[in-house]
């Protein structure tokens, strides 16, 4: 038996998984249209490379990765591009983003594929390139481009962790994927292991999924995989958080702002491993994923759905019940409410919960914090949520940072247990976005000042240069006049006195810039430096939520009435 480690806190919300994990994964029927956002991943948006009216084949590249941290987007089926425009996407802000709309022609005609029998023959660079071109991103929710995460030097990474924990209530897509496609998940894991030079693979699955554990174990035995182990981990939320699972399996704690690879671990979701295998082995880009449809529906189950499928068309296949008030994408702990029921499924859509009053009753009004520390007892990051709440609410952002606001993983465990019904995570999201906004404007101000200083010094330099040139010219003229009778070279050499001052000037400008940079660094708040690209992307997201959060905060303030 492997020794497992624990993380602090955690909660045991009702799992509500049995509703949807009894039936096998069902192929969703072809929808009437597909709305495919170009920005489904962390990093920069893909560039559209098709035009409206164009016919595309299934698996054809329609959005090309743009920049190092970006990913590709493909046509999930064959059909005609009907529009490339701004549409509401699967994001709680309701802010439109660039999407490609595809009308399926019903033929589902594949583009030419080149399945690869022996990926070992391919170079690592080539493998990474193929993953990137196949649009493989983290399917556990982070949607981070996988190729970027699959880079390591030899002997740096000991453990590759495959995350099959699936700790969020209601969601069963990974459970079913592991039960039905274990072999392919492991093949994907082998590719990942090779790219990372990882010594061992640990597959963490919560012990409330015995069928998945059995299937995966059987696949490990059958595939004779060396140093690969399926580990049943205790069922506890958020045990499926990457940091938490790494801790449970290896004992390593990855602090905020630290790369797990520096500590010798890398973590991927099982579904990501599966799609990595489809991409390499079958030359199939990421055009569909398993989505749990559950909640207020008559037949909760998992569907293999094409990316871009309008959510309501998908939910319609699970016998929706009356009374649905909206869709939650993800689980009830960290999921987000969709701005519309028609938004398209994206790569991050692991679950759609049809929400209804009886399933998710309105929260009771918030009371003041009674400092009971139930929140601190469950916080997996070992924070003091009640202090963070206090500081966030008082907009004492420096203090909030001192109390490790940025170590908060927004798991919501604190909000879940708070007897005063305080929407704690909302306050943290709000405080984080405030800090990011401040830092962004600070950065902008720094940049502006730098530009200004640079311009000043340029003007100064130009003035001086002019004066010097003038002086030099005059001097040269005088000398020339005086020496006209002598060698012409003398004129040339004495006509270059400004070469030297020019150099000095450049040096000065460089110094000024360096100085400005130093100054900027001195006043730059510490967090900007540590921002991962993921966080940077979140800034934009969170910005959008801020307005709504403010409203909530206002309500809360109104109820406790003392601030």
């Amino acid at each position, binding site marked *: 038996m492997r020794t497992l480690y624990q993380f602090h806190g955690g909660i045991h919300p009702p799992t509500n998984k049995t509703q949807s994990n009894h039936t096998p994964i069902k192929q969703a029927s072809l929808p009437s249209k597909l709305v495919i956002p170009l920005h489904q991943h962390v990093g920069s948006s893909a560039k559209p490379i098709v035009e409206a009216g164009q016919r595309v084949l299934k698996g054809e590249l329609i959005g090309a990765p743009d920049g190092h941290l970006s990913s590709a987007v493909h046509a999930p089926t064959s059909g005609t591009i009907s529009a490339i425009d701004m549409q509401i996407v699967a994001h*709680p802000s309701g802010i439109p983003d660039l999407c490609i709309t595809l009308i399926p022609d019903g033929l589902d005609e594949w583009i030419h594929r080149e399945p690869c029998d022996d990926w070992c023959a391919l170079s690592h660079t080539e493998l990474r390139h193929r993953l990137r071109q196949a649009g493989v991103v983290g399917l556990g929710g982070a949607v981070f481009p996988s190729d970027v995460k699959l880079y390591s030097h030899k002997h740096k990474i000991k453990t590759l962790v495959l995350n099959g924990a699936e700790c969020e209530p209601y969601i069963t897509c990974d459970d079913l994927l592991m039960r039905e496609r274990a072999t392919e998940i492991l093949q994907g894991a082998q590719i990942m292991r090779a790219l990372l030079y990882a010594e061992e693979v640990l597959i963490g699955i919560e012990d409330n999924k015995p069928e998945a554990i059995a299937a995966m174990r059987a696949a490990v035995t059958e595939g004779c995989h060396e140093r690969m182990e399926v580990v049943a981990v205790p069922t506890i939320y958020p045990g499926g958080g990457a940091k938490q699972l790494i801790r449970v399996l290896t004992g390593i704690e990855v602090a905020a702002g*630290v790369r797990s690879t520096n500590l010798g671990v890398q973590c991927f979701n099982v579904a990501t491993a599966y799609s990595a295998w489809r991409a390499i082995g079958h030359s199939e880009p990421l055009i569909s994923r398993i989505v749990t449809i559950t909640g207020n529906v008559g037949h909760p189950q998992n569907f293999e759905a094409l990316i871009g499928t309008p959510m309501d068309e998908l939910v319609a296949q699970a016998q929706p019940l009356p009374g649905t008030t909206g869709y939650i994408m993800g689980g009830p702990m960290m999921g987000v409410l969709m701005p519309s029921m028609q938004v398209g499924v994206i790569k991050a859509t692991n679950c759609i919960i049809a929400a209804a009053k009886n399933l998710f009753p309105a929260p009771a009004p918030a009371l003041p914090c009674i400092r009971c520390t139930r929140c601190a007892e469950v916080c997996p*990051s070992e924070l003091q949520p009640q202090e963070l709440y206090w500081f966030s609410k008082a907009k004492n952002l420096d203090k909030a940072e001192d109390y490790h606001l940025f170590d908060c993983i927004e798991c919501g465990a604190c909000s879940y247990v708070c007897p005063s019904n305080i929407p704690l995570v909302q306050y943290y999201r709000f405080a984080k976005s405030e800090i990011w906004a401040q830092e962004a404007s600070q950065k902008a101000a720094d940049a502006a000042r730098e530009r200004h200083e640079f311009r000043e010094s340029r003007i100064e330099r130009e003035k001086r240069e002019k004066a010097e040139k003038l002086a030099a010219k005059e001097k040269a003229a005088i000398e020339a006049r005086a020496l006209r009778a002598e060698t012409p070279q003398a004129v040339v050499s004495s006509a270059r006195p400004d070469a030297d001052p020019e150099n000095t000037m450049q040096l000065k400008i460089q110094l000024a810039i360096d100085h400005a940079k130093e100054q900027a660094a001195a006043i730059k708040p510490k967090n900007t430096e540590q921002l991962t690209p993921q966080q940077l992307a979140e800034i934009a997201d969170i910005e959008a939520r801020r307005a709504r959060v403010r409203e909530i905060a206002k309500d809360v303030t109104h109820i406790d009435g003392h601030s």
Partner: protein
Amino acid sequence: MSGFFSPFITKPVSVSQIMLHVLLALIPGIALYVWFFGPAILVSLTLASITALGVEALMLKIQNKQIAPTLKDNTALLTAWLLALSIPPLAPWWLVVVGTAFAISISKHLYGGLGNNPFNPAMIGYAVLIISFPVHMTHWLTPHGLGDVSLSFLEQLNYIFQGVLPDGIKLDAITMATPLDTLKTQLHLNGHVQEILDMPIYGRLAGQGSEWVAAGFLLGGVYLIAQRIISWHIPLAYLGTLFAVAGLFHLIDPAHYVTPVFHLFSGAAMLGAFFILTDPVTSPTTPRGRLIFAASAALLTYLIRAFGGFPDGMAFATLLMNICVPLIDAYTQPKVFGKKKGQS
């Protein structure tokens, strides 16, 4: 639809349920109180409860806050009960009312209401009463069977509300000083601990009857810990430190310092350890902070009991330590995930 943001589910535990548990946990102690000292305590509990709810509603109304959610949270009731249990049951009715009103209005609402009061409201109420009306605060009932006479319930009511005793009965005949107080007075008269404890008001562990009430609170407290309503840190550190300090003095000079067990089962030690110091609003939030807080409170309790001017030190120890809570919290912040010793 629930809120607009995750988490969309919450654990069905409310402040009012938590406080209800605490109130329930007080019942064994109260029952034993009634058994040994008669039902007068129920009168002061009722008086205090009514006053607390009334004053709370009034304060909320004045401040234009919503009344219902706060009134339902049971915290005012808890304050009322804790205060009522700290004052003599035979105290005149207005003493209970004044103390409770003060606790709720001044020490809770003037500081911003629930969650914002730095001092334990019940203990503020107690401190105000013992300073302003010291004499009234000493009329403790004699346990059943010890006094020469005993009052019927009606006669007790008559005394509480009208201040009239039946003909021929003096107050002294039915009341006594607390066991802690008596001990202190007798020691001042150069009594020897062993002789003093032979007095009939003392029982097996501490005061006759009151030791059982303390045991009742201990039982309730253990229930609270078992139910995870309170953490073990404060009660254990408080009782443990009190035991250790009292034990040390007792070992050095048993003639002048009573046994540690006596201290644990006397005065408000049990009530305080499980019900007063553990008030979440006025105690530290970090585990280490709670240990420091409770241990210091125990030390102060002992010092006040053994060397100070008041018979019991619980209330003042609590208030003194309440002041230190922000400081204790600030200096005992635990290390967060991934940033502990031995890790980068």
